[in-house]
């Protein structure tokens, strides 16, 4: 029995931020309260923030296929150091996670190597090729929490219609990437003054709305449970809002990079800022921050994508997309808190509570009986990020050299301490 005392409790369910104590009973949260804490072994939090551990929806662990970029062991250590207690992995590995056998392999690897909880997503179609659906029933029984082809858009709407209809019958959640595949082909920047100046192949931000509109029509047709992995442009928001008002089972996420960076950060072709979809304008970034605050966009995730130095040290168009972010998700998100744009309970609603709820997980809460997955952090402590101190095997972060605030002091998974600063 452990009691966290003198803690600033961040409760995303109640949307409260209060000074108090929290008592564990084994691997679950027993009770919280204010005033004098009960007797027992104490962890003095010294007024720092105690929040439900982050549930990171959409992490690429490069197993199988590219273990030199990230393994379950390194991703687990990075997650623990970043306050992430549940990793939800993407199936865009080599090969794709599209059969129960491959799923069993990664489950075994994760169970033996990762120090945080790991849940796995399955591909929606075999090889993420958009032609035939995977064995959704088997994969669901084997523990896949959602089905997604990641950044590959299923271009054939007949294939998508069947997959969505079948997934609904299995009670499976489908995650899609809203993007018109033809318009965005070959693009590595968002069209606008900056892309024109740099001479980069660019895609109109409208391609995202077109992808979203198409998928919303498919959801209306099939009644499927659907989550958009990343909404990044203001033009896509009204349609999303209408769909939610009309009662469709639809949610949406955004990556931390699209909330804290904009297209100008690419500067002189800095490939660590190349992500998918490409970084947007400052107006779009602010619109997305507003959408997270209002709850229209439900989930913030890291979209952790490890890339080795070789795949980034190339001309911008040829360089690989993606950034590592398990360890920088929390300090980057705290920029929005320090800027007065989001409260801490709002941030943890998007980082812990909502992704857990969407995947049907018990974690992500501070309420009684919830798993004791917790993060203790100093929201104000400043630091300058050195990418070579990251625990990920790959060091491709856009925040190298950035001044940030927010240091994780400790992380607990099922009541066991997995990280200590």
């Amino acid at each position: 029995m452990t009691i966290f005392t003198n803690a600033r409790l961040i409760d995303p369910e109640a949307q409260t931020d209060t000074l108090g104590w929290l008592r564990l009973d084994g691997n679950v949260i027993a009770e919280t309260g204010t005033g004098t804490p009960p007797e027992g072994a104490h962890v003095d939090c010294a007024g720092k923030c105690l929040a439900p551990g982050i549930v990171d929806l959409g992490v690429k662990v490069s197993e199988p296929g590219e273990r030199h970029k990230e393994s379950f062991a390194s991703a687990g250590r990075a997650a623990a150091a970043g306050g992430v207690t549940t990793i939800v992995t993407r199936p865009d590995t080599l090969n794709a996670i599209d059969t129960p056998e491959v799923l069993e392999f990664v489950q075994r690897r994760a169970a033996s190597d990762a120090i945080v909880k790991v849940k796995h997503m399955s591909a929606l179609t075999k090889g993420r090729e958009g032609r035939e659906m995977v064995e959704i029933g088997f994969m669901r029984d084997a523990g896949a929490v959602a089905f997604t082809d990641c950044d590959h858009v299923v271009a054939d709407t007949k294939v998508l219609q069947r997959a969505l209809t079948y997934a609904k019958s299995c009670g499976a959640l489908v995650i899609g990437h809203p993007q018109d595949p033809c318009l965005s082909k070959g693009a590595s920047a968002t069209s606008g003054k900056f892309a024109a100046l740099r001479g980069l192949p660019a895609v109109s931000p409208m391609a995202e709305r077109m992808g979203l509109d198409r998928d919303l029509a498919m959801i209306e047709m099939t009644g499927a449970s659907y989550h958009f992995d990343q909404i990044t442009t203001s033009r896509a928001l009204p349609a999303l809002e209408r769909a939610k008002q009309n009662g469709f089972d639809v949610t949406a996420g955004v990556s931390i990079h699209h909330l804290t960076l904009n297209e100008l950060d690419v500067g002189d072709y800095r490939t660590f800022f190349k992500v998918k979809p490409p970084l947007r304008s400052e107006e779009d970034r602010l619109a997305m921050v507003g959408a997270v605050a209002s709850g229209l966009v439900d989930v913030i995730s890291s979209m952790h994508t490890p890339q080795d130095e070789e795949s980034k040290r190339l001309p911008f168009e040829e360089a690989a997309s993606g950034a590592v972010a398990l360890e920088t998700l929390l300090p980057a998100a705290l920029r929005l808190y320090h800027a007065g744009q989001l409260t801490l309970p709002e941030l943890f609603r998007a980082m812990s509570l909502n992704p857990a709820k969407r995947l049907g997980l018990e974690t992500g809460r501070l309420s009684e009986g919830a798993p004791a997955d917790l993060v203790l952090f100093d929201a104000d402590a400043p630091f300058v990020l050195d990418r070579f101190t990251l625990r990920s095997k790959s060091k491709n972060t856009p925040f190298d050299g950035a001044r940030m605030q927010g240091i994780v002091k400790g992380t607990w998974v099922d009541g066991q301490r997995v990280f200590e600063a």
Partner: protein
Amino acid sequence: MAFRQKHLLGIEPLHPDEITTVLDVAERYVDLNRQANKHSDALKGLTQINMFFENSTRTQSSFELAGKRLGADVMNMAMQASSIKKGETLIDTALTLNAMHPDLLVVRHPHSGAVDLLAQKVNCAVLNAGDGKHEHPTQALLDALTIRRAKGRLHRLNIAICGDIAHSRVARSNLMLLGKMENRVRLVGPPTLVPQQFKEFGCEIYDDMAEGLKDVDVVMMLRLQKERMDGGFIPSEREYFYRYGLDADKLAHAKPDAIVMHPGPMNRGVEIDGTIADDINRSVIQEQVEMGVAVRMAAMDLLARNLKSAREADAGVMV
């Protein structure tokens, strides 16, 4: 004399005074190039390597000639045929070359920003001879010199850049340079080839040649870049020529003394009518080629001076 750059990667980082300096130095090389003895020893003892990752005849030979006339040891590397095919990365190629101690590296690459990347990894002066759809600074400088000599000034002119703007690094560099020197620039072409974002750079956009060319001092035609087109930007070449190709009727809308320019190679009968291109009273296309050698000599001369003083400063620190 103000020219402080370590590399010539684009027009964007240049100050207007630096542009003027390059053009002034180039004027002297124009005179030199017209003499029987065309030799100078400005680059004597220095090594110039031309790395072309994309096909080029005109630009490469212009750089080669410029280096040779200034006394440099010039080496050409045709990169399409070499190690890139064997899987070597751009950075490794750069490091390999760097170990050979070149002083001037002239680079053309099919991807935007590739020359910037390379410049970060070598310790010599790098000249961008065209990177993707980004910049082609020596082309803009030679165009500027041609205009200045033909019009007597390089400011307060109305200049129309016509044709395939979207795929053109020449257009970007020219737009930047002519803007810095306070000219009014118009972009003329079909909307599929003239991105509307260019309005934000302070130029006017026209999709009609007659309107776009009205009362301009300079008509700058661009080549229709067939090799960069990945699918239907225009319905056909004959419709393109009918609507946007420069012929006498369309040119009649410009000022009577307007000059006609083209960076070459020309597609006669696609973007320009042969008789206009050959009209010695209007066309300065051959002059552009001549200015190209002089401008490249000036750019390499200035960069070599900066390189030498930087090396002397370094040596001084070590003493």
